[in-house]
């Protein structure tokens, strides 16, 4: 097992190193952003002493390396300071938005993976059938259509023309409630349908195509012949085959989830969903830099973490992989 432990350690070190570099890049970038960070709380009519005092309060007079170190420390403990615009501290704002994004993403991911796996496995098993060709062609088309256009189309059709479903937001307007109360309400479900359809239409294609090609490889395996000789039914054999075909899917899901976080910016804007993607866009437009910085950091962190988990899972699940 020492090979595995060493592999995990190497990946962990690499992860920390990359996070550190990205944090530094963000720090440098934010320093170059236009706009004076003191403009919000310092009026030009203040006396020079007052301005100096304010600057000292916010640590803006410290030498650059001191700012850098305290920045690193804050990022590590997730202390993001206060927003330039909103009253809450940044950490609360960003956390809430992150949860909202997850609320949109998680149902789609689960549904896509479950349905996609089944459809893909069947498609791969029934090689050459009409079902398979339809699945593949539809998946290819769905996969390449830009998701934000599909979102606009769906909105135009179901919300504006047919008026079946709400056109945006996470819950019916006027219902101010905590996260968990919102999520378990009926209004939320109605608002969830359209974004989920759009997300799923794209995300389901991944597992379908992946499972299909994976299944094609497994189908020729010897162990299936033995199972058939044992007298198992076709359905049971498919189940066994699918289990072996699942390996690439595991890493795919982990990576896909990480990537979804940034792709959702567009969908969140279209559906006016108060998630972290929309937050970073509005924060940048409003020049609310603490929020923008925190959002970016969390997004990068999520992607890196999911990649790291994918690497780990890949190591654990396949006993054939060895490390040296």
């Amino acid at each position, binding site marked *: 097992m020492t090979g595995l432990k060493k592999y995990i350690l190497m990946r962990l070190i690499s992860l920390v190193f990359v996070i550190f570099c990205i944090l530094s890049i963000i720090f440098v970038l934010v320093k170059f952003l236009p706009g004076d960070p003191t403009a919000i709380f310092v009026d030009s009519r203040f006396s020079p002493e007052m301005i100096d005092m304010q600057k000292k309060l916010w640590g803006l007079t410290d030498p650059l390396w001191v700012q850098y170190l305290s920045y690193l420390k804050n990022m590590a403990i997730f202390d993001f300071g206060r927003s330039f615009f909103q009253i809450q501290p940044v950490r609360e704002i960003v956390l809430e938005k992150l949860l909202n994004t997850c609320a949109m993403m998680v149902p789609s991911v689960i549904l896509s993976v479950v349905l996609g796996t089944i459809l893909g496995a069947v498609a791969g098993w029934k090689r050459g059938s009409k079902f398979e060709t339809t699945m593949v062609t539809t998946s290819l088309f769905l996969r390449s259509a830009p998701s934000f256009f599909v979102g606009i*189309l769906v909105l135009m059709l179901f919300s504006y023309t047919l008026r079946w479903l709400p056109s945006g937001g996470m819950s019916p307007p006027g219902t101010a409630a905590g996260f968990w109360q919102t999520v378990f309400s009926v209004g939320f479900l109605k608002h969830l349908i359209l974004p989920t359809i759009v997300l799923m239409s794209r995300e389901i294609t991944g597992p379908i195509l992946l499972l299909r090609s994976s299944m094609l490889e497994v189908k020729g395996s010897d162990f299936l012949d033995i199972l058939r000789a044992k007298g198992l039914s076709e359905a049971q054999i498919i189940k066994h085959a699918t289990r072996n075909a699942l390996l690439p899917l595991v890493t795919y899901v982990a990576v896909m989830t990480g990537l979804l976080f940034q792709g959702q910016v567009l969908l969140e804007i279209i559906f006016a969903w108060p998630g972290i993607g929309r937050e970073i866009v509005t924060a940048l437009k409003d020049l609310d830099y603490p929020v923008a910085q925190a959002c970016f950091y969390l997004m990068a962190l999520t992607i890196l973490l999911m990649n790291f988990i994918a690497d780990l899972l890949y190591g654990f699940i396949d006993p054939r992989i060895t490390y040296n």
Partner: protein
Amino acid sequence: MEMSGAGRGKSARVRKLSFLHWPLESLKVIFQDTLGAIGLIFLVIFIVMAFLAPMVAPWGPFDVVFNPDKSVRRLLPPNPTNLLGTTNMGMDVFSQLLYGSRIALVVGFFSAIAGALLGTLVGLFSGYYGRWIDQVLMRITDIAFGIPILPFALIIISVTKPSLTIIILLIIFFLWRTTARVIRSQVLSLRERPFVWAAKAAGASDLKILFFHIGPNVLPFSFLYMAIGVSAGVMYEAALSFLGFGDPHVLSWGQMLNFAFNAGAMRNAWWWVLPPGLCLSLFVTSSFMITRAYEQMINPRLREI
């Protein structure tokens, strides 16, 4: 464009593997695959559209269309004068669509070619020389992989002025990383092959081996990622423009969608929303089909045989 033997009959002459061998060969393969052929046809249509835009488009992309009585033709559905209707500012949608195709092609091809080139170079040097060059370049690629594309682009564009150049540079920055990794793994396996040893024994310098022996063999992958890059590049430009971070001087399809969305046109002006979106989808889909057909050629495991 010397093809030395290729396409000149079934002679058994040994063919020199020129740099142009692969693209022409791949064109043949793409036509054999139905979806790839459809994709290629659409791409050609877009290229023609882009070239003919200044001649065919009745107005410029930002020109306001007036009635004879000097009133502005706002938000009109398709009519004989404005084939695809007008925007809320009175601009002709059809003309905008045609000019948008130019942007799509420019962004797509420039960023794809540059990105694939950069990625290939990085992959070649990293894979061949190994050791510390490899480590350094791979660490940089790792960091690039960890940065979320869209948010990073948003921040950079907030720092600098929004311009097409910046967007193209950003896309190149992100296209390079996947190409580099794939090319590197190819080079790693190729450099142990006998033909490389033979070249070394014959006294070829490292650079010569890289570019004349290993290089042509990784070219298929470079082209593959270039094809992927075209669709990815156009998508990112559209996404950035749609979010409002695009170049305001330039009218891309994403920019059209941005204007339409902000004007609330989704509720009724389908003629403004659907054409750019459809063009985007078609462009990306056709590039994707071409990519897939090409991928089937270079990766035998994917073949539908």
